[in-house]
């Protein structure tokens, strides 16, 4: 069971308080009517399935009911960071993971 740091509550809590809501950073097109059917289909249905780092949207459903993002390694299930909606991920490649652990943030997330 994952241990997830809610960036709104500022606490590590157990996975059973959270729900995953799929891949993060998929903005709704600002002008849906300008999208072709194919573009709209991509927006609605097509998601990445990476081996390794994945940015995910989560909700602290049984807690503060706030959505946030998490960067998770789909192989080891390590969560390398969690960050609020609107923020950008700090961990975007394999190389930065050990660095976060080293500077103490890995402990928190």
């Amino acid at each position, binding site marked *: *069971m994952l241990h997830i740091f809610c960036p709104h509550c500022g606490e590590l809590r157990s996975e059973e308080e959270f729900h995953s809501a799929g891949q993060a950073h998929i*903005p*709704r097109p600002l002008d849906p*009517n300008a*999208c072709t059917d194919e573009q709209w289909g991509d927006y609605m249905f097509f998601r990445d399935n990476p081996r390794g780092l994945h940015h995910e949207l989560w909700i602290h459903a049984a807690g503060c009911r706030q*959505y946030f993002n998490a960067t998770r390694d789909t192989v*080891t299930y*390590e969560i390398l960071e969690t960050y609020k*909606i*609107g923020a950008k991920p700090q961990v975007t490649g394999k190389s930065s993971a050990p660095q976060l652990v080293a500077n103490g943030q890995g402990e928190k997330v």
Partner: protein
Amino acid sequence: MSQVYRLSSGGRIDRSKVLNFTFNGQTYQGYAGDTLAAALLANGVDIVGRSFKYSRPRGIIAAGAEEPNAILQIGASEATQVPNVRATQQALYSGLVATSTNGWPSVNNDVMGIIGKVGGKMMPPGFYYKTFMYPQSFWMTYEKYIRKAAGLGRAPLQNDPDTYDYMNQHCDVLVVGAGPAGLAAALAAGRSGARVILADEQEEFGGSLLDSRESLDGKPATEWVSAAVNELKGMPEVTLLPRATVNGYHDHNFLTIHERLTDHLGDRAPIGQVRQRMHRVRAKRVVLATGAHERPLVYANNDVPGNMLAGAISVYVRRYGVAPGRKLVLSTNNDHAYRVALDWHDAGLQVVAIADARHNPRGSLVEEARAKGIRILTSSAVVESRGSKRVTGARVAAIDVKAHKVTSPGEWLDCDLIGSSGGYSPVVHLASHLGGKPVWREDILGFVPGDAPQKRVCVGGINGVFALGDSLADGFAGGALAAAEAGFKAPAVTVPKTLARQEEATVALFQVPHDKSTARAPKQFVDQQNDVTAAAIELATREGFESVEHVKRYTALGFGTDQGKLGNINGLAIAARSMGITIPEMGTTMFRPNYTPITFGAVAGRHCGHLFEPVRFTALHAWHVKNGAEFEDVGQWKRPWYFPRAGEDIHAAVARECKAVRDSVGLLDASTLGKIDIQGPDAREFLNRIYTNAWTKLDVGKARYGLMCKEDGMVFDDGVTACVGDNHFIMTTTTGGAARVLQWLEIYQQTEWPDLKVYFTSVTDHWATLTLSGPNSRKLLSEVSDIDLDKDAFPFMSWKEGLVGGVPARVFRISFTGELSYEVNIQANYAMGVLEKIVEAGKKYNLTPYGTETMHVLRAEKGFIIVGQDTDGSMTPDDLNMSWCVGRNKPFSWIGLRGMNREDCVRENRKQLVGLKPVDPTKWLPEGAQLVFDPKQPIPMDMVGHVTSSYAANSLGYSFAMGVVKGGLKRMGQRVYSPQADGSVIEAEICSSVFFDPKGERQNV
């Protein structure tokens, strides 16, 4: 004659406490402190079961969790049956009832055994797949009998009377295993002040020290154990959990511990006590001190009862005062087996010989045995054992390990017990639960845990550190490290002094060679629980199963309840040799939770019976019960389904309730509808974006029906939303959709439109909703309310605040029945009083309570949809003939608009919701029934839709249904057909889905 194999002294048992127990119907005696296995051995019980495939007699091999054969059914009554208990891990108690899980008519005289003997050659791996393959549909039939013959224990037929529970724990350091390394680690971490949990699967702490010949600081090992345990007991932050198996290592250092609190006390837990507890532990650091399992050697007929693990013999002798035989022959490739010879010799029993595969062993223990005059045969091994129900002899022959050959015919030695030791396999199970691959170490001939991202430390035997002094030092260091990483500083320690020993290296021997080829030699068992032989593994590799995972699946190696604790490494080694590659090239073996089987009781904890799932009741539930309601589950809610009077069935009750609503007035508890309070300056704009229709012009005091779609344009919820103030709305949702809709609103507000100032609060439980529906509802309500109910002052689709039954209420004039209706919302804790006043006043109007069934009928007569019944996530508002509810010209491209304009959503001939009127008005179309245009078309027929809601002839005088039909809206008056399972065909006419009061006059009076 009882306990003939009990030694006259020794063991950690209490000989003053005699315990009676039964095995396969026969009564035996043992002592307090025995395991069931120890007591069986003490009584000379050789056969504990019959093997899975060949039905060969099997005896106890091991003394712990790795036992593959003594898998018994425990339980003195039907309700307390527990299958697949390892006798080696079950403490003996008075009145214990155990039976073998297989063997017919008995384990001693088994019919299948004869077949196994003669049919062995005819049952190669994959036998079941190959033999019972055709016809495929018969597998289910075969399987039932194969399982019965094989025997895997059985579940009880009655409810378990005991209580099980969960406990959540947090700790700095969780130490798994309380052998020497684990105790040392717990001491180091405990002394640092860290919060420590020490869990061990055995009845008492100490692990291998409990049967050890070693001394610590010159004192017997068990004295050090007592001192260590006492010190730990005195530490306030240390929790000690004996009889507690850490059975799963899950993500982010979450581990589950299966603690058996009272399994050692009796068949049932004492009154008021919990039988088993699942600890759910989040540990900052984990110390794995799980030790190592001795590996047996694989030789011919190595499964005859009387063939045991060498180390297990020492455990029985030293810990339980039981000698599992009289004349012992040992076969080994390492020094450790010699201490078994010494223990046996010290107990005054005869060591016939030790066969050592090595050329010239000179270790300290070897020399000690030599000095005692024990016969040692070097470059030799037991190649074959003799005996049918018990070992009667062992053939020891010279072997060439490198060439895998027997180099002399050898000699038969008379004996009744053979102990074999092929080295030690570190218990890496927990370390690999999360996918961490074990790494082969040639120097210890075993797999050790590899690198893993988990915050854990491995100490002692699991690391391949076997010598006692080294293991203790490793434990202290690991415990201190774990504590330090968790933020604590462990004081320095002095590791207790142990005797330094000279040790001769182990030689790599897994399968012992035989004069004949593996295929022709007597069976050499690798996995005794699943009857996998060395020949079967060789055959699997010959048949092309080259991956270890395929070999395992084809032969069933390691697929028993023991997960191949004894067999996996030997199987891997045999497969590797057969393919001419090394063990690490062959691969590794992985393990999954649970380490040992756990009971369903422990899995369920308190979540059974009425605590299985939460149940939600409305504020009026007690009234419904008192008035005889039958209930229906809607999500977690209990909703009144119908209110039968004496002698009424559901049809009669629903017909009466429907008539009362249409003729006078009915009362429905609508409290379960989801209610979301929406506030904020941008609330109106938000509704415009979420709903398909327009909300800009909805005035304060008005209400409107709305449809919600997903981005694909498909309807996913509906309900009425009322404007309370310019910045304040009350949204209602379907009963089952309330939570889903709230999350839907939140995700869009938080992730897409955070600039919109709008807030959502679930108020479903805050308000109780009483719906009064029927032509007399106005008259009735006026008698209990001060609200002006005049049809012009309070028109349809508006709402007012006022007193109802003397209590402030929000009354919505909306209708789901097509009748004049008022939905009275009252603060939930006042609702019962208001209800009673309404009921009192309603007597003269024949006020009739009705349930969900009548509600469904009445709404269907009006063609009102129920989302989730008439829709299935693939229907647009247009498909539902609800274009009137779609605001295509709203400025913002609201959710669903783009989706419903996709090419496929606007094509002709989509399935559309229509009314269906059976041509024979007494026929009822089953809900879900498929529809066709041509009933004479041969199968497969073109299915053109299905029935979504259907009701028998009632107030309308004919049966009617709603359903979806391809292009149905343009097919009014045409016929569709529904072929039934019994061969009949129901013919129906496509019609408008509004069957009753099509102009909507009755709700507008």
